[in-house]
């Protein structure tokens, strides 16, 4: 079975490819370039095409599939209505699938399930990364705010942190927000 993964994110495409390695009898092609996409698809003649929902080439691809109905191996959208839950899950995960006519649902389903799991895993990785980066930035702000308090009010580091924490609790805000506010105020007063 030939599977084409169309994804402008090479990182995500390789995570999906890795997932599909669990399947027997599969040949995976990764297409990350928008230019020449249809020519590549034509050349590969895939049985299944997976494409992410955020890909601007989807309409181009669907047009090609609509026209391809005249070809020997027409590709349709994954349209087995009995499998609507699987399609809904794939849309929720952010991937859509197109399948060559006549491929049995029994062969498509495990493939789609894997793709969905991989897409979700990738989304989780992204969230984790964004969170980690966010936490790092917060940590830097808090350190900076502490230094401002230590210098201006001659406090020790634990005292400076306690001040921030007290203010956060009394105003029902996060310490990082208080730290940001303090830095902004300090910048304004210092004319930075």
């Amino acid at each position, binding site marked *: 079975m030939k599977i084409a993964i169309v994804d402008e994110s090479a990182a995500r495409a390789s995570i999906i490819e890795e997932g599909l390695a669990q399947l027997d009898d599969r040949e995976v092609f990764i297409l990350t370039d*928008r*230019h020449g996409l249809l020519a590549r698809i034509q050349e590969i003649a895939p049985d299944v095409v997976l494409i992410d*929902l*955020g*890909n*601007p*080439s*989807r*309409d*181009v691809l*669907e*047009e090609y*599939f*609509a026209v391809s109905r005249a070809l020997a191996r027409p590709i*349709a*959208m994954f*349209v087995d*209505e009995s499998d609507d839950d699987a*399609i*809904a899950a794939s*849309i*929720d995960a952010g991937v*859509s699938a197109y399948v060559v006519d006549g491929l049995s649902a029994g062969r498509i389903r495990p493939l789609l399930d894997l793709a969905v799991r991989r897409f979700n895993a990738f989304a989780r990785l992204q969230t984790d990364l964004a969170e980690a980066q966010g936490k790092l930035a917060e940590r830097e702000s808090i350190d900076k705010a502490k230094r401002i308090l230590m210098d201006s009010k001659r406090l020790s580091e634990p005292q400076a942190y306690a001040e921030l924490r007290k203010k956060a609790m009394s105003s029902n805000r996060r310490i990082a927000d208080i730290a940001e506010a303090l830095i902004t105020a300090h910048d304004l007063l210092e004319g930075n």
Partner: protein
Amino acid sequence: MATRDLTIGFMPLVDACLPILAQVHGFAEEEGLRLKFIRDVSWATVLDRLLYGHSDAAHMLAPLAIATTLGLGRPAQKMAAPFVLGLNGNGITLRTDLAAAVCPPGVFGDPRAVGAALKLEVARALAQGQRLRFGVVHRYSSHNYKLRYWLAASGIRPDVDVEIVTVAPPFVADALASGEIDGACVGEPWNSLSVERNVGTMVLASAQIWRRGVEKVLAMTEATLDAKREETEALIRAMRKAGRHFVDPANWEQNAAILARPEFIGADPVLVRRAISDRLVLAHGMAPVHFADFMFQYSEAANFPWVSQAAWLYSQMVRWNHATFDAADVARAAGVFRPDVYRSAIISTGDDLPAANSKVEGSVSQLTQVGTQQGSITLSANSFFDGRSFDPDRIADYLAHDS
């Protein structure tokens, strides 16, 4: 009154303006609604989100809503369009050198003259073994059908003499620059971007092909419309208010700035303002040209979903072999447009409502007062450039003319 949420899908185009402005200016809130938006870069994804419940309603190509109802390319799902988001607003932009050969740069050409000149260029290319290639935004789009209508009436056979391919709107300028396409029919601000980058010259407005041609609609699945009927009617009233705000010159600057934001269109507000104000720069470095009704979002009951407009789109699907003619499908296609919902939303406001749900398209050549259910409506010319008219009750005759 409790605030109810509606999620709206859209593509980054100026004609997504009405729901966006309804939210930003508080018209939605006045109707007890809070609108959330999901921006996508393909119509396929806008449609998937509608069908699988990520969104309640969407800014959508009218023919795509019809194609989905008819089950073209995927299993049929009943769609409903209770509100037309606007008429026209698209342009035809050609590669700079090709444009110069068919039309004086910087002014809108005469569609007949430009068509005749283009026919010569098409023949010249064919003699060299090349077919000119035009981009449209989607297979099932009014862009595709209006471009084909104009080409065919100019003696240029789509799919035979020229090729028509799909190009996503934000990539039209790139495709012109790389020589992937020789011309395109696309909405704003993407013609203006091509002009700005000096990779294309706009030669025609879609309004010159059909003066009052339907463009995007607010589309929903029929099931969502039934489940959220009250919210939908509230949204229709909010969008009428947004339309009145949109066409007022006093608001152009502000609305261009809002629509240009990255979460909406994500483009230069100067370019967005050109479409809003009907003042387009057609060729790089030239002065703007005023073309009244380039976009048409409010007056003459522009948002009323005339079923005859849906029927015309269906006739073109048949004409270009996207659908096979079937009398039952005419009714299904026309039934996507829901004047009944529009009427029941608007009736309490006293806003203009026509008496009929259908009209002979292209039959008005001068200011004409039409019968109304309430208010007063004077239609101005709604002609097709070749002077033909479309009677929705005689689709077979209309199509026979072209075969």
